């Protein structure tokens, strides 16, 4: 089974074939971020920065200034940890740099909290010109990358390490407007990235497609009007995110319902501590992000 980081590595090769502007800036994580094949085929466009993310970030901004499209890749935690460098060299330079943060969330697993990207979305959301992409299946990875090379400005692509049972969607990504996977009626689950797949299988296995909506935030910033028109149709919300409870999509949606005066019950599943080591499946279970925990939560919200 593959993960979204694998689809990224594969599709980047396809894009690079017809787009000589694409370059990769790697921080000694070529295998982990799935850019080694790129190195083999396009060595002249592959820059090894070593374990020096700050330097890699500012070098990428320089490359972008020369009209290239640099993909600077590392674990999301290591990359966004260099916040001051991203703020200045990429953000306040309005650089056309693609920051690729893999190993999102708890699911890095046994390596533990020092490697775990649980605050990356929060950090990136504070930079007003950074677009965030978090695809959930191979098609969305391809669509996101097509969009990323088209749109000018700073971008953060969040990718997962863990293989999942992916499913096909009827529609392509509606960037900024939200992707409604199930319409439902009583409860709306809003999710992002890997937990969306868990929530999908939870709703399916309970045969709840007619009762529960599932909305995926594949890209940010969001269009408040579009989201409000969806969210206002339900009585209860359940936000599921593999991210710290502050600064992620729970905060995003809570602000939306405040600003739009939407009266709706607000529930969340997310991470409220620093995270810890463990098998990714065990961690998802421990933090209630796995299919079974989501099923339990949905039954409770439906009073069943």
């Amino acid at each position: 089974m593959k993960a979204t980081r694998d689809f990224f590595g594969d599709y980047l090769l396809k894009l690079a074939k017809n787009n000589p502007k694409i370059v990769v800036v790697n921080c000694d994580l070529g295998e982990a971020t799935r850019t080694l094949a790129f190195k083999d085929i396009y060595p002249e466009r592959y820059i090894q920065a070593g374990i020096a993310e700050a330097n890699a970030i500012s070098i990428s901004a320089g490359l972008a200034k020369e009209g290239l499209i640099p993909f600077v890749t590392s674990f999301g935690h290591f990359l966004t940890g260099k916040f001051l460098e991203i703020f200045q060299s990429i953000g306040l330079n309005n650089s056309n740099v693609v920051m690729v943060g893999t190993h999102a969330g708890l699911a890095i697993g046994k390596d533990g909290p020092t490697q775990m990207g649980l605050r990356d979305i929060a950090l990136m959301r504070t930079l007003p010109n950074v677009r965030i992409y978090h695809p959930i299946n191979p098609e969305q990875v391809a669509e996101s990358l097509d969009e990323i090379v088209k749109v000018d400005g700073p971008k953060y692509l969040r990718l997962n390490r863990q293989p999942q049972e992916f499913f096909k969607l009827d529609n392509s990504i509606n960037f900024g407007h939200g992707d409604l996977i199930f319409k439902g009626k009583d409860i709306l689950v809003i999710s992002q990235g890997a937990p969306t797949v868990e929530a999908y299988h939870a709703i399916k296995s309970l045969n709840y497609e007619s009762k529960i909506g599932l909305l995926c935030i594949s890209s940010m910033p969001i269009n408040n009007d579009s989201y409000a028109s969806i969210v206002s149709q339900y009585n209860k919300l359940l936000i599921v995110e593999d991210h710290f409870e502050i600064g992620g999509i729970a905060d995003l949606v809570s602000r939306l319902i405040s600003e739009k005066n939407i009266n709706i019950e607000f529930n969340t599943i997310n991470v409220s501590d620093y995270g810890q080591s463990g098998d990714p499946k065990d961690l998802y279970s421990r933090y209630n992000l796995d299919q079974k925990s989501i099923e339990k939560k949905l039954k409770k919200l439906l009073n069943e």
Partner: protein
Amino acid sequence: MKTNNLEKDINQLKYLTCKMCLIAQSGHPSSSLSCSEIIGSLYLKLMDLDSDKFILSKGHASPSLYSALMMIDKIPKDLINNLRNIDSPLQGHPDVTRLKDVNVTTGALGQGLSFAIGLAIGKKIKKEKGNIFCLIGDGEMQEGQIWEALMFAGNNDLPNLITFLDFNKGQSDGKVEQIMNISPIDKKLEAFGWEVKEIDGHSLSEIENTVKEKLSKKDGKPLFIISNTKKGYVSPNLTILDGNHGASINDEIMNKVIEELEISKR
């Protein structure tokens, strides 16, 4: 504009720098003056303004960069009234989103050299000609990212990268050697794979000869120029603000500068 009289034009550049700092009553004039000859020589004489780029990593010397941009008519001279003012393109530190001619946003120290490396690699990938000049501060060398960048450049083939160190020996809390000594710089840089030269950073001929010698070669290592300078240097006879990093200029000092630089009052 290519200068007919570099010394006179750099005097004018220093005048603009001091004047805008006087009007703003802030703006790191002493750190701007220590690199006036370097920035002036590059913009007014040595750079090919079409293909070369200058990166001011020590962003607090922005008044000197803004003055050079005024001298080459990239920005209007009346902006000297607008340094550090609200909605001004002349932000306290260079902000490329408000003034594209500064090439890069800097201010938080340590990042500009990496950016310059990105430009140099970009030229290489695109097989374009052009030299990248970068100016870093001595206090800035205490930033870890500078050493990441120095290590990277020394390990990669970047003959078109020339870095000036504005070695004015001062930083916010006092003398560099007392706060966190960076010497011996030459030995460190050579060990990191750079070609190193040491010059008087206020000598126009030494700046020019060192740059021209490097540009005449087509390959080799990146060049690091240790430029010995003085904070607040106006002329051999006049240094202002007593090495103070944050001090601003008053009318009395401004009059001395005008007199020393033989700028006619306006």
